[in-house]
Every structure is written in structure tokens, then in C-alpha cells.
């Protein structure tokens, strides 16, 4: 049996090491900080060891994270001799992979609470989430920064070029069941209300530049869906209306399970954010499906024209060039799938206060799986403090040392966690960085027996 676990771990590790170099949104070390109720967000089968709890309104859990598999901040920008900041085109170009992504996720939990009832644990939360995923090829950046002459005689595929940028409100209700001494299962259902979105579908762009003639062959096939409220125009809405909007309804759910193999070993697994949001308000859809070769301007059409006629002809030609792209604007309802995540964890509790954990995480975006591996160490330093240290391998990046701190002052709990402490201290030097911070009010099972804090 142990060999099976070992082999499984090795295979998952190899997948992580050899995976495509794309950055995933991650929240990895926090997975092991079970004393924080919000770990239930990562696996709905996790049951906090409290009778009930609730988060400090608006600050129960605030998360921000960024990442890029391409150039980092200090590779994109550089200090100029005048001590100002300038664009570093060479830095950008030298640090591009064939496929790159940029991610940013911000979660602000307005309300959060949970309670245990017999073998069940119920939780509820209301959060605002912004989730940005941009997938781009090195070719499109090379083209933008250095022009097309480097591709003369070639046909370059500008794919991938995918954008998923969402802002939505999430109302979640979760239930976890302590089935028996070994097994917990949990599910969380989410009602989602999209606030705004930019979402690309079927982006297929090709550019060819012929030898000598430099004829430009352009193939353009894309659908760009947007739901962007108007804050400026005649039908503008204000921020209050925006935040209170109940349009763009969606559904999602998380499922999870934990299994206690024996006194020392625990297994856990969860799948998060399975669902979608239907955007049906503030819609604009830009569609293009065209293929043409631009050979320049037909000079013969100017023969015999006077200056005024030439000017009119140039205007006509400019319009026709724009029309070549055949971009149509419409209002189409569109559905955006959530970015699904899979967590697979193994914990080894080698003492009452110490746990070693291994976590594999997979994120699915645009049919691309983005894996990561985390090893964590969790230590209970007493009633008031617990710490977690983690090491993560993600996207062939091996220098991700994380840290988490939990301070409990019954009933107040303050926690902070990051997967890359260097990213917190020096975000411009890393590809990835994140931080989660929050304040909860926790009430132990035997809360009534605990002394009150003397204020």
C-alpha cells in the first residue's frame, strides 16, 4: 500500500516538473493551515475544529495574488540613467516563453461564518472576486515590440491569445459531513452574479509576411465577449448600482473529501469552481472571421485623378482597409466557465503538534492544465500561535518559500499566509506572489468553559 502512495507521489511530482511553463493561480501553503476556517474554501470537506465562527466583516479573508510565466516586473521595466522607470524591451523579449500567461486574483470576503451541528458543518460566505487570466504567445509580443520584419517569409501563429477577466459576487453555502472516523465529504454551492467580464473565444490569428513583396497575409477568427457597464455615457450607472447589480447569474460548486488512513496519514482531495456565469447585461461582442492578403494600395486607381480626388480616394482606401478586418459588433449573451482547480493532498502527522504535508494542485484554463507541487510543515506553537512553512515548485520555478502565521486570541483569530515570502518583500523580482490575510472570531467546542478575555 505504501508503495502505491509513493509511486503516486512520484508520478504527480514528475507531472509538475515537466509540465508546461504556465503560471497557475495558487493558494498552496494555506491549505495546511487547518486552524483557519477559510481553509474550507480550498476543500469543502475540511471541518474547522470550532463550534462556530464568523469572520470580521469585510476583512475575514482578503487575498491577492499575481503571477506571470513570462517576464517579471523588473524584466519589463528598468531603471534609466535618470533614475526613472522605463520600458525594457530587451528584458521583455529575452524572458518570453513560447506561451506565457499573466494572472491576477483578488478575493475580498465581505461575510463569512460557519457552525457545527452534530456530524455536519455548515458554512456561508459572501465574497467579491476578480479573476484575470491572460494567455499569450511570445510571437505577439515580438511582433508588437520588434515588428514583422523578423518574420519575413514566415507564417506566424499568434495563438494563444486568450483573456478571461471576471469580476463577480459569490454567495456560497457549504456543508461538510463527518461520515465516520475516517471519511469527511463536503460540498459547497455558489450563486454567482457577474459584475463585468472580458472573455475571448476561438481566438485564431495568423500573420504572414512574404519575401520581397512583404505582402501581409492576415487570418483573423475570434470572438471577444464583453460585459462592461457604462460609467461615463448617457446610460451610465454609478458604483453603488454596479456593486448591487443582480444581473449575470451563474452557478458553481466545490466538492471535497478527506480520508484518514490511520493515525498518521491523511488524504484529501477537492475540486473547486466547477460552474459558469451567464453574462446577459452590458453586452458587446466583437467578432471577426476573415482572411485576406494586403498587397498595398493599387496605384493605378490614382491615374488621372486631381489632388482633391486623390484625397477622397485615400479616405476611401483607409476605410476599406479597416473594413478588411470585418469586425462586427453585436450583443450576444455569453457563458464563462469558472477556472476549475483540483487539490490532492497527503498529510503526515508525525506528532501532536506537527504535520508534514504534500499538495498537488491543478488549475484548468482554456484546456490547459497548470500544475504545482507544495511541501509544507505545520507547527502548533501553543494555544496562541501556529506557523506553517512551505516550499512550492511551480512552473519550473523552484524558489518559492512560503510562510503562514496564525494568532489565536480567543475568540479572535488573525492569520496571514503567503506562498512566496520573497514575493511579499520584493514583488518586482519574482514571477509569483500572493498573500492572504484575515480576522475571524472563533468559538471552540467547549467555548463556554473557556474564560472570557478581560478587557
Amino acid at each position, binding site marked *: 500500500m505504501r508503495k502505491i502512495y509513493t509511486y503516486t507521489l512520484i508520478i504527480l511530482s514528475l507531472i509538475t516538473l515537466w509540465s508546461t511553463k504556465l503560471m497557475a493561480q495558487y493558494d498552496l501553503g494555506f491549505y495546511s493551515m487547518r486552524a483557519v476556517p477559510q481553509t474550507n474554501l480550498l476543500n469543502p470537506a475540511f471541518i474547522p475544529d470550532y463550534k462556530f465562527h464568523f469572520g470580521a466583516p469585510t476583512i475575514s479573508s482578503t487575498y491577492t495574488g499575481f503571477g506571470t510565466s513570462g517576464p517579471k516586473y523588473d524584466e519589463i521595466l528598468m531603471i534609466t540613467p535618470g533614475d*526613472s522607470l522605463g520600458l525594457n524591451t530587451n528584458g521583455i523579449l529575452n524572458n518570453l516563453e513560447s506561451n506565457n500567461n499573466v494572472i491576477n486574483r483578488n478575493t475580498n470576503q465581505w461575510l463569512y461564518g460557519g457552525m457545527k451541528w452534530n456530524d455536519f458543518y455548515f458554512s456561508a460566505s459572501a465574497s467579491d472576486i476578480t479573476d484575470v487570466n491572460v494567455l499569450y504567445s511570445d510571437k505577439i509580443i515580438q511582433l508588437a515590440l520588434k515588428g514583422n520584419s523578423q518574420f519575413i517569409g514566415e507564417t506566424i501563429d499568434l495563438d494563444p491569445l486568450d483573456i478571461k477577466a471576471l469580476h463577480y459576487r459569490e454567495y456560497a453555502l457549504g456543508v461538510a459531513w463527518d461520515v465516520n472516523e475516517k471519511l469527511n465529504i463536503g460540498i459547497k454551492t455558489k450563486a454567482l452574479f457577474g459584475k463585468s467580464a472580458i472573455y475571448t473565444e476561438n481566438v485564431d490569428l495568423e500573420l504572414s509576411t512574404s519575401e520581397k513583396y512583404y505582402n501581409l497575409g492576415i487570418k483573423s477568427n475570434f470572438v471577444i465577449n464583453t460585459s462592461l457597464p457604462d460609467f461615463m455615457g448617457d446610460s451610465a450607472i454609478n458604483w453603488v448600482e454596479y456593486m448591487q447589480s443582480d444581473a449575470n447569474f451563474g452557478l458553481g460548486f466545490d466538492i471535497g473529501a478527506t480520508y484518514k488512513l490511520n493515525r498518521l496519514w491523511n488524504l484529501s482531495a477537492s475540486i473547486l469552481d466547477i460552474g459558469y456565469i451567464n453574462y446577459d447585461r452590458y453586452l458587446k461582442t466583437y467578432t471577426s472571421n476573415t482572411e485576406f492578403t494586403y498587397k*498595398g494600395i493599387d*496605384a493605378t486607381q490614382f491615374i488621372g485623378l486631381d489632388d482633391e480626388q486623390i484625397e477622397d480616394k485615400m479616405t476611401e482606401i483607409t476605410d476599406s482597409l479597416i473594413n478588411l478586418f470585418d469586425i462586427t459588433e453585436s450583443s450576444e449573451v455569453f457563458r464563462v466557465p469558472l477556472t476549475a482547480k483540483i487539490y490532492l493532498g497527503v498529510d503526515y502527522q508525525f506528532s501532536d503538534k506537527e504535520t508534514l504535508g504534500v499538495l498537488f494542485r491543478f488549475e484548468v484554463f482554456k484546456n490547459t492544465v497548470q500544475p504545482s507541487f507544495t511541501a509544507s510543515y505545520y507547527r502548533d506553537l501553543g494555544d496562541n500561535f501556529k506557523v506553517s512553512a512551505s516550499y512550492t515548485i511551480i512552473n519550473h520555478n523552484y524558489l518559492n518559500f512560503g510562510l503562514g502565521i496564525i494568532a489565536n*486570541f480567543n475568540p479572535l483569530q*488573525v492569520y496571514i499566509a503567503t506562498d512566496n515570502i520573497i514575493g*511579499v518583500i520584493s514583488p518586482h523580482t519574482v514571477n509569483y506572489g500572493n498573500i492572504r*490575510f484575515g480576522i475571524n472570531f472563533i468559538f471552540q467546542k467547549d467555548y463556554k468553559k473557556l474564560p472570557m478575555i478581560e478587557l
Partner: protein
Amino acid sequence: MSKSNMDIKYLLLSILIGIITLSTLDSCYKERLKIHKFSGGSWNPEMAVPLFFGKLDMQMVVDKSEDYWYEDPNGLLSIVYRSEQITQVGNNVIDIPNQQFDSTVSLLLPIGLPTGDSALYLFQLNAEFAPPTNERFDSILIKEGDFIIEISTNINHDSYVDLIIPDFTRYGVPLKQKIDLPYSGSSPTTVTKTISLADYWVKINTNGDIDNKISEFINVLIKKGNQADNSPYSISLSQEIKNITYYQLFGYFDQYTVDIDLQKIDISMFNHSAIFDASLEEAMLKLNFSNSFGIPVDITFDSLYVEKDGGTKDITSNLLPTFSINYPDINNVGYSDSTIIIFNQDNSNIVDVINFFPQKFFYSGSSTANPLGDVIPNFVVDTSKISIQTEVEIPLYGRYIVYELTDTTSINLENEYNWEEINSIDVNFNTVNHFPFDASMQIYLTDTNYIVIDSLFSDIVPLTEAAIPGPPPEYRVSIPEYYTVTASITNQRLQNLKYAAHMIVSGKSSTYDSGTKVVKIYSDYSIDFQVSMKVNYNTDF
């Protein structure tokens, strides 16, 4: 210290550490990221783009050219320069003079004719029609003209005259005119009558009789009044035909001469003063005479020559100086007959004349009617004319070398572009040439004193190469010639544009193999051209 107090201290300490940490991080981020100090950057792309393209085919040249073109059944093109001259029309050439007929008749009243009774008298007159010397008018269909009759008599009774001319008919009806001669109590009695002869056929010589006589019948009726009989009486008739124009005139009009005024044709294809070495293999001068006079005519050219820059060269031919042209016969009145006289390399020196590269062609002369003097039936209609259509046809068949053509344009580009931002430009000139001739070009930039400060190429370079013509006699090109030439311009040379005041475009061209081979230009020949550019650009933003 109680556990609760310890908790509170740890709590406050934790929050304090958190706030300090976040504040420190925030200030550190601002300083380290320096996002507030973002000042832009440098953008240095190299773009390769097509600028413009086109296809010039001979059909387009033919359509847009002010010259005339002719395409033979094989598609070989010729440039044709044309002119047309028309001689005076019929009525202005053959004139009908006014005619005058005077005659007097006498008569006696029957003796004892009672008052109130009448007496009728019949007379026949032969009026003589007098054409110009050596001419004869047989019949005339009159367009306009007047017949004026003045009758004067000493008859002292009421009377009248009926004038009948059977040879004057309108729509088949002979001319008949009754003229009353009322007695007013005194003599003589004079009456004048004017008759329009419009649309009358006047037949003078008919049925083989050539006497220029017109028969007239005059009936005179006298009604006896109370006056005395003063017989014998006389009646004088004065008849005049005047201001005659005609639709048709038949007869014989003798010999007469009409001048053909000096006519000029511009030959624009040789107007360029470039040094020109060419040899045209064929040429043709075609004179198309259209004659609607029913008269034999000879044409005589006094002058037939070309001119170039003041110098002249005569066209010589065994057809010159005089030749006869056709005329319509009596069955084709109102129609014309044509005669085409062609001067080609077999009967003239026209090829030599064209290789003189003339800019103008001149001719003048005269036409002579009835040149042999034989009296044969002639006719003329009011629209009769002789038109001379002249065509100088030059097939595009030969070889040439244009050593240099230049065109100068004033430019001022100092403020047009930000030249400092362009590192270099490579311009490709791409051609696919179906024509069996090449073209070379150079562009010079000069200052205000026309001193060259730079040029597009290091030397005059080919823009396109000549396609290889096939074997004779068609010399047809079957495979086009692909050619690309690149002009590379550095930033330093671009700076010269700022100081350029004039742009001189200089071009050369020659037929295949440096102008040594004969070619033909067909209507389906074309040249595809395309200009593309690679520009290395550098800008700060």
C-alpha cells in the same frame, strides 16, 4: 500575569506587527516598484509592409492615350495619327448662273368680234438656257430659286395669259401660271409675277437633244370690250430665273480645280527630345479619299513631307504626284465612292521617313475634275464633297534605346517627417515584366542650385528587365521576367532629404538585349509592379 492579559497583549502585538509590516511593505513597494517614476521607453520595431502595386497593360495605355491605336488580328499594336479634310460642297463648286429669256408675240382681233365675245391665241416659245462656257446642264432638281415673269401689252381690252412650261415639273405636275391683264383705260398694261421654283425638276436637255432649250406654251385670251379694236396688239414677256440652288444637277461641268489646303498632323510619339536611337521596321501612310461628286477627279499633291525640329523630309513614291480617285456613277447619286492610296515600304520611302522620327506630317495639293476633258455625264448633289482621311500608322515593331529621360520636381520635406526616428529604409521595387524592354531609373536629390547631394541608388539601376521575345516573325514574349531591386537608405542619407530642394528622376529604357533586338508590342502585354518597404524605426515615448 493572567492568561487573558497575555492574550490581549499578544493580540495587540500581532495587530501592531501586522500594521507595521503592511505599512512597511506598502512604502517599500512604492519605492521599489517606482511606478510613479515611469517615464516611457524606447520602441524600435522593424516593419516590412507593401506600399503599393499595380498592373499596367497595353489596353490601359490604349484607353488612356490621346493617340489613336490600331490592333491587328494578331494583337500587334500600331499608333495611328489621323486627320480629315473636306473640300467645298456641291453648290459652292458648281454654280448655276441666272437666266434671262425675253420674247414678244403679236396678235389681231377677229374682225367684227362682237362686244363681250372672246378670242383665244396659242403661242409656243423656246427659251434658251445658257450654262457657263463648255458646261452643259441637262436637268436640275431645284432647292431654291425664283422665276420672275414680267408681261407688258398694249391690248385695250381685258385679257389674260396662261403660261405653261411642261419641262418644269413639281411632283410630276408641269408649271402652269395664269396672269390676268385687266385693261385700266390706258396702255400699256404691265404685270409682274414671281414664282418659287423650289422642288421643281427642270429638264433642259432630254431625249438626246442637246440644245439647251426650254419649251413654253402661252395661251392668250382677249375679251372684246366696248373699246375700239386697235389691232395689231403685242405682248412682251420678260422671264428671269435667278438665285438657283439645287439638290441635284446633271450635265457636264467641264474641268475645274479645287485646292487642297495645307494640312498638318502632329506625331506625338516622337515629341520627346530624349536622345533616341530607334529603328522601326514598318510604317504606312494611308490616304482615304471619299468622293460623292459624280465626276472623274485627279488628285495632285504639291507637298507631302514630314518635319522634325525645323528639318523636313519629303515622302517620295511612284504613286505621286497625281493619281485618280473613284467617283459614283449615275446609279449612285447621293452616294460616295472611295479610293485608298497606301504608301508603304514597297512603294515609297515611308519607313525611312518614320525613322526620321518626325513630329509633324504635312500635305497640300489640288483636285481636278474631268481631268481628261472627255464630255461624259456628270452629276453633283448639294452635299457632294471630297473628303481626305489621312492616317500615319506606325506599328510597334522595331527596336529602341532611350538614353535618358528626366523629370524634375520641387520638393520640401524638411518639416514633413521626423527623419531622426528612422534608422534605415529598404525599398524593394518588384516587377513582373511581359514587355520585351527594360527600364532603369535613378533619383537625384539636389539643393536649390541643382547640385546633387544624394541619389537613391549608387548608379542608375534597372527597375525591370526585358522579357525575352520569341522567334520571328511574331517576336512574341511567352515568359515574363521577374526582377527586384532594393534601395537601401541609411538615417544619415535620410537627413539629406531635409535639405533637398529638387528631385530629379532620370530614366533609361531599351528593347531586349540593350536595344539591339527587334521586338513587337502586343495588346496583351503588361507589367506588374509592386513597391514594398522595410523600415527600421526608433522612437521614445
